[in-house]
């Protein structure tokens, strides 16, 4: 058994509100067919799971992982009093606080717990520009990487040597020879740790080798970059990436299929890559979205809903269904949506306690019931 220190969590945010019903499809439910006359998926198209639910047709790679018992599907996930605004609902998922506006994110608080003295500037790495609120926390540094190959300071300087040369001047300007006041102190410290972070991450990029050929799209590129940093063993515990937009008000059949094909294939390649480097048991992936969508379609897509679906994937995951598939009966619907039956913070708590080995209570503010989707003994 490996030390928990080697473990990491990869969070992929499905931005825009993923349509849970066309992801894990209740394909032989009459209400599904009746309410989805424009965008329903048929029994022929879907990839059957258990005779009543099936994966979206483009989720073949994910189904492959499911068959290896590596995928936990959390149906009916949500929180009390659903909010159907993208921004507010995403905020709730990011801060794990559904009643008031919280200043920091659940992962930011987790990073502070892991590395309180910020000894490692790459404890968390965000792929994408600008920090999602999930990673924000006072005094917690997080590297935000657009593209690992060009990441670093002053990327407009052409030529590798030339850039190294200019960066030497940069480090002189941010070094200890400057007179000191509080602002320079902060600039100097952070300027130098930014350079170190960039060095560490560009090292990860140059050391990487693999036989896996990822597709060339944003989510594949992000997952490939994440694999590079994992293999470099630089102490990163949390990775974050985003995929979207799942805001399929129109043209859902086409758009939703493309989104899931890209993601599912990228995850397939990512886990192949992990396996090739013998790291498949060290990494757990969470896929979440801010809400599901309406049960009834609108003629070409679906509008904002509530109860959704999340996924937890990895070599240490005990695959299967968690939560309950919400009933589609009119009497069971909440204002036209699937009713949530498990709080998303139960999933967070499970990941924190059982996977990261971190007490979830101080981070989430209270004790949430946990799932068993992490293998015992890991």
């Amino acid at each position: 058994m490996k030390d928990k220190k080697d473990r990491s969590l990869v969070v992929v945010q499905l931005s825009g509100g993923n349509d849970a019903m066309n992801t894990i499809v209740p394909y032989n439910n009459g209400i599904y067919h009746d309410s989805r006359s424009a965008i329903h998926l048929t029994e022929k198209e879907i990839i059957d799971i258990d005779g009543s639910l099936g994966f979206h047709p483009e989720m073949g790679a994910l189904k492959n992982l499911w068959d290896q018992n590596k995928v936990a599907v959390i149906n009916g996930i949500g929180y009390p009093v659903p909010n159907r605004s993208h921004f507010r609902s995403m905020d709730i998922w990011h801060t794990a606080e559904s009643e008031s506006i919280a200043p920091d994110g659940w992962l930011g608080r987790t990073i502070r717990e892991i590395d309180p003295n910020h000894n490692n500037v790459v404890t968390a790495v965000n792929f994408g520009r600008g920090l999602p609120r999930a990673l924000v926390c006072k005094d917690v540094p997080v590297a935000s990487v657009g593209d690992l190959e060009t990441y670093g300071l002053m990327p407009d300087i052409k030529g590798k040597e030339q850039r190294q040369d200019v960066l030497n001047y940069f480090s002189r300007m941010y070094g200890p020879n400057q007179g000191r006041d509080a602002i320079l102190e902060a600039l100097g410290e952070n300027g130098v740790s930014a350079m170190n972070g960039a060095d560490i991450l560009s090292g990860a990029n140059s050391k990487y080798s693999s036989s896996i050929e990822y597709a060339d799209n944003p989510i594949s590129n992000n997952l490939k970059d994440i694999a590079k940093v994992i293999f470099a063993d630089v102490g990163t515990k949390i990775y974050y990436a985003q995929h979207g937009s799942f805001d399929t008000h129109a043209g859902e059949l086409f758009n939703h299929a493309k989104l899931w094909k890209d993601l599912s294939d990228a995850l397939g390649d990512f886990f192949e890559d992990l396996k090739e480097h013998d790291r498949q048991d060290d990494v757990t992936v969470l896929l979440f979205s801010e809400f599901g969508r309406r049960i009834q379609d609108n003629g070409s897509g679906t509008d904002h809903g509530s109860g959704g679906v999340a996924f937890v994937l990895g070599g240490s995951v005990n695959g299967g269904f968690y939560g309950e598939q919400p009933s589609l009966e009119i009497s069971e619907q909440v204002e036209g949506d699937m009713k949530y039956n498990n709080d998303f913070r139960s999933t967070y708590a499970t990941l924190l306690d059982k996977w990261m080995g971190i007490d979830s209570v101080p981070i989430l503010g209270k004790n949430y019931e946990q799932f068993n989707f992490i293998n015992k003994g890991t």
Partner: protein
Amino acid sequence: MSNKDIMLMAHLMRRVGFGSTKDELEEYIKNGYDNQVDIILDSEPNYEISKHLINRYQPDYGSPMGNSSNGASWLYKMIWSDSPFKEKISLFWHGIFATGYAKLANGIVLHDQIKMFSKFGLGNYKNLLIELSKDPAMIIWLDNCESHKGAVNENYGRELLELFSMGTGNYTEKDIKEASRAFTGWTIANKDYMTTKSQRDSVWPYGRLAMHFEYKEDDHDEDEKIFLGETGNFNGEEIIDIICKQKATAKFISRHMYSFFVEDEPPVPEWPYKEPNNPNAIELLSEVYFDTGYNIKEMLRFLFKSKFFKSEKVWNKRVKSPIELVAGTLRITKEFERPDKQQSSANSHTSFMGQHAMNPPSVEGWHWGTEWLDSGTVVERVNFSSSKLGDVNNSGIRKIINNVKSNISNQYSTELLIEKILEELGSIIVSKTTKDTLKDFVNSKINSEKSLNDDNLSELLQLIGAMPEYQRA
């Protein structure tokens, strides 16, 4: 005109606006310092940026689905307005009365709130607080629409005292309750429909509606209240009246002003435990507050003409906020002549650096000063300013290069070249270490190739954009 005059004017312009280049500074200095302060405070802009221009490029302006176009059009005004002071004042109040999209899900009311700041933000503080209490975005943000006679929600009452006027330690929990009672009935028209529409509805296809204030007399608690020692059947206006009379309010607002315009104070939560940087300045500003009947503009006039503001000790004693950094840089490069898509995407850089306009992290707004800086945001800040200043295709940078070239002979010294560039960019003051570093760079790169070509100058400008001094104002 002496070098010192230019430096002082550059300091003023960094604080009242987003910085000025040499050409502009030379114009202003002709007016004399005090006169220039009056001009900035008293004159209306010559040229109002047309709403129709912005509408043409950002058709969702005013009724946006998100708030990115509102942030972008505000940034556009900061870049192109000939009275950037107006935008700076709105930014000042937005920092204190921070209200955010995350809860409102309605861009138009936020846009209206910023407009309200520029309309009332230089007047009487009492009026500003009354307008704020009637502002639909604020009413939703702090739940005053959920506060009813007999079922009081204390959120607005609390923050009015804690964050908008007096600061903790100057009132009791009972005062909060009484103030909240006085604001019952201050709500928005058609509230249930509006909030449901914001929360539940798809944004397509019609976007959002504006909202307006409504006073519901039958939902107002008109019974007697005891507030800060005074007794009466107070309504909201009277509560604000009492608040404005307090010494604590004068000090609180003076300290905010000092921090925003003079030098960084610690963030607000630390105020009860830390003395101001300059207690005397806070005293003086408080006196002006009472002497002028709570007049913000007169407080600022006093501030900008004061010794403590002009003192070299406070030059560059602020960390530029992300919005100041981005707006100031784009004012130099003059890259975006139109509020188009590219300009919109430039706006998102402020979020990358940790300041998403109209979407503050909490009711407290953003913490400023060194709290803007961490290893992630420093990368964003350095890369933005260095790549913008290094882009010699931008008309503003092109002009600076031409000015420098025409001001130095072929036999220029390294020192002179650096001085001229720093002067053109707005008389940036740098330390000896930074200057020596730039000199060594010029000597090794430019002088060895004996060429002031674009590539070399671009690299020098990138290094200047990356220097720590550029991050300060």
